[in-house]
């Protein structure tokens, strides 16, 4: 996974407990905290799982809770601070943004060699609801996507509910509803 995604764990740790908390989590994941994460580097997925595992231990949260916070934090802080313009280009409202998710990931994948980004497709379920289909070779990251979607709701000031549906063999579906028409 790209360093720019993993970086959310670092940012989240620093915002929750400062440098010392991040050092603990990094140490637990076997990462040299001084070198940290290079945002354009494609890291083995094991590192992501190790970071989540270590944060889970240090923060006494379940891995899914960590992943959801990790996703939210990425949208609201990490992405916003480093790639704000890129995110803004993906859409000015929740629905447009979700609609452009696959396009955005496709462009990132074409621009950074060696990355394997997830695929997204969506189906409208009504004026304020849609179903998002997420496909990835990485398993167990449904909570991360859920956190990203909730983060997007906050980003656009649109209270959102995300329901993770039962995973299928090659994909994971989410039902997303928001309170007002975006």
């Amino acid at each position, binding site marked *: 996974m790209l360093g720019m995604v993993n970086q959310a764990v670092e940012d989240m740790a620093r915002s929750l407990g400062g440098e010392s908390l991040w050092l603990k989590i990094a140490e637990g994941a076997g990462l040299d905290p001084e070198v940290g994460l290079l945002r354009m580097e494609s890291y083995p997925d094991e590192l992501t799982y190790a970071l989540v595992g270590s944060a889970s231990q240090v923060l006494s949260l379940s891995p899914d809770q960590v992943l959801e916070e990790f996703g939210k934090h990425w949208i609201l802080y990490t992405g916003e601070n480093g790639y704000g313009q890129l995110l803004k280009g993906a859409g000015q409202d929740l629905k447009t943004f979700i609609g452009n998710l696959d396009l955005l990931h496709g*462009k*990132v994948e074409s*621009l950074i060699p060696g990355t394997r980004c997830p695929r997204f497709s969506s189906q409208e379920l009504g004026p304020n609801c849609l179903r998002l289909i997420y496909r990835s070779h990485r398993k167990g990251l449904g909570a991360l996507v859920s956190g990203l979607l909730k983060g997007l709701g906050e980003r656009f000031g649109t209270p959102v509910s995300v329901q993770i549906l039962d995973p299928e063999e090659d994909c994971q579906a989410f039902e997303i509803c928001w309170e007002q028409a975006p």
Partner: protein
Amino acid sequence: MKVLRQLFPFSLVVNRQLKVLTWGDSLCKVTPEVCRRGTDLSQLVRLERPHSTEVTRDFLLSCRRQGQIWRLNTSQLNLRGQVVVLPKERIFLAFTPVLSSLQQLEQLGLDLGDLGVLDNSIEFLMQAQLQEVAMADSTRLRQVLQSKNAELTRQRLELETAQEIAQLGSFEGPADGPYVFSRNLYRLLGLSAQSQIDLSDLLALYAPLTDQFNLASLLQGGTFDVQLGEVWHRWTVYRANDRISGTVQDISLQKHSENQLLQAKLTAERANQAKSDFLAMMSHEIRTPMNGVLGLTELLLNSVTEPELRDMLDLIRQSGQSLLVILNDILDYSRIESGQMPVELREVQLQPLLSNLMQLLSPQAERQGVGLELRMDRDLPAWVRTDPTRLQQVISNLVGNAIKFTHQGKVVCRVSHRDSLLQISVQDTGIGIAPEHLARLFQPFVQAEASTTRRYGGTGLGLSICQRLCRMLGGDIAVESVPGQGSCFRFWVAAPPAQAPGPSLCKPVADLNFAADLRILVAEDNLVNRRVLMGMLGRLGLSATVVENGRLGLCECQKQGFDLMILDVEMPEMDGLELIRRVRAGEGGVPNRDAYIVSLTAQARERDQEGCLEAGANGFLSKPVSLSQLQQALRPLARG
């Protein structure tokens, strides 16, 4: 047409008069004015390149094969354009926006989906932003590397300094090489730092190599002390995960110190041995005449009846016994120091042992006019397991001291038992000991004050011996004292409760009788001691053939068979041990090679006793010999 508009969402279609017919959704989003049929093209856009000019149909048709740059009249957005002629004289203007930043996309109210699928401009902008990120990361990484490099340099210098101070070099690498050698290793081995070397090159310096120190043994790991000329090196090698790391240290100084220490230790051991031998010899030299003094005094006391003479003889006996106590103290201390004091644990009946001991000590107390009390706890176990000889030695010493230093009042000996420990305190109402002298009271050759030695005598070894005996018996000793009021010595030894052993078959010494026709040989070179022995044997109703040395003794043995032989160990011409060995070997037809042999020596050390028994003696007597000791030694020959 719809497909074209999707491919080019910023496109326009105009008619022959350049009036707008249809428009792309994205263009409409940026410039809503365009979304009206019939609007004049020139009202919406103007041409920037190839040159700014009035836009006419002919002009548009003339530049069909080249691209143009247009600008929207209503915003600062430039459009890249291409003219395509459609049927019915319509013209398709395929516009794509010229974006200079992602921010511009936001300012125009556009998003990724508003751009045509064939439009790569957004990729360029994204790439620019990602490159910025990569550059920032690269800059940060360079700073981290610089900082780490500086830290590594500092650590390397620190390590080099430490290695130089410790006269140590190091190396590290995979087992099959190549290795990295520290600078100080080169220096230590007198090599140029530029040399291209391997471990085998270093080992070649120590040629010829040995079975213990060679490349194969080194790679197994371990510590090797080897010499390179006059210099000693210690190689310490670790092997882990097929990597080898090691150090080479100059330990010449350490080796020199070790040698000095070893020499000092040997010298000290020799001195200690000399001291022990000297003590033993002195003990022997004094014991021999003491045997005469005490033995003859005892014999005289049994035959003299005149009170004045008896008093004088008694004084001689007491003085001799005091001298013997001093001798025994010196000998005991010497034994304890050399670790040769044996501890013989056995079942001991406490009550008779303690009572008899107090009885033995009570005459001394009576003479001093001091009371002597023994108070034993009611729940004292009848039998315990300990060394009775050493226990009695400690109690005698403490009670004897207490009596000696008490002029009025009493000495109380309290005995209790708890948790397998026998605890005994000896409390007196004597002169007491000043606090400043208490701490060194148990040091050898120390008495509380110099004046004590002058007034009360003694070697100053007694308490030191007591302390060491207590510790040998698994306990210790302590003292409390108030000057002028008295002292209390308290000691404890391990003495677990024990079962009573089976009934003893031994008869009391006093009841022993011997057959008068017992054939006895006495070999003793000292005239006085011969007389003492003969006197004692006479007291037992026995007589003996007497000779002055072993050679004569052997002659006598060859002439007649003896039932008992009492042989001095140290004799001229042939010593007692040699005589025993020859008798046991039946040399020259000795008729009774199984005679009962008691050896007699002034050497009171355990190893001397063992030497006699090894030579073939049945019993052993240490000079000076008392009548009762002689009786005890001859017990196996007693009648009945």
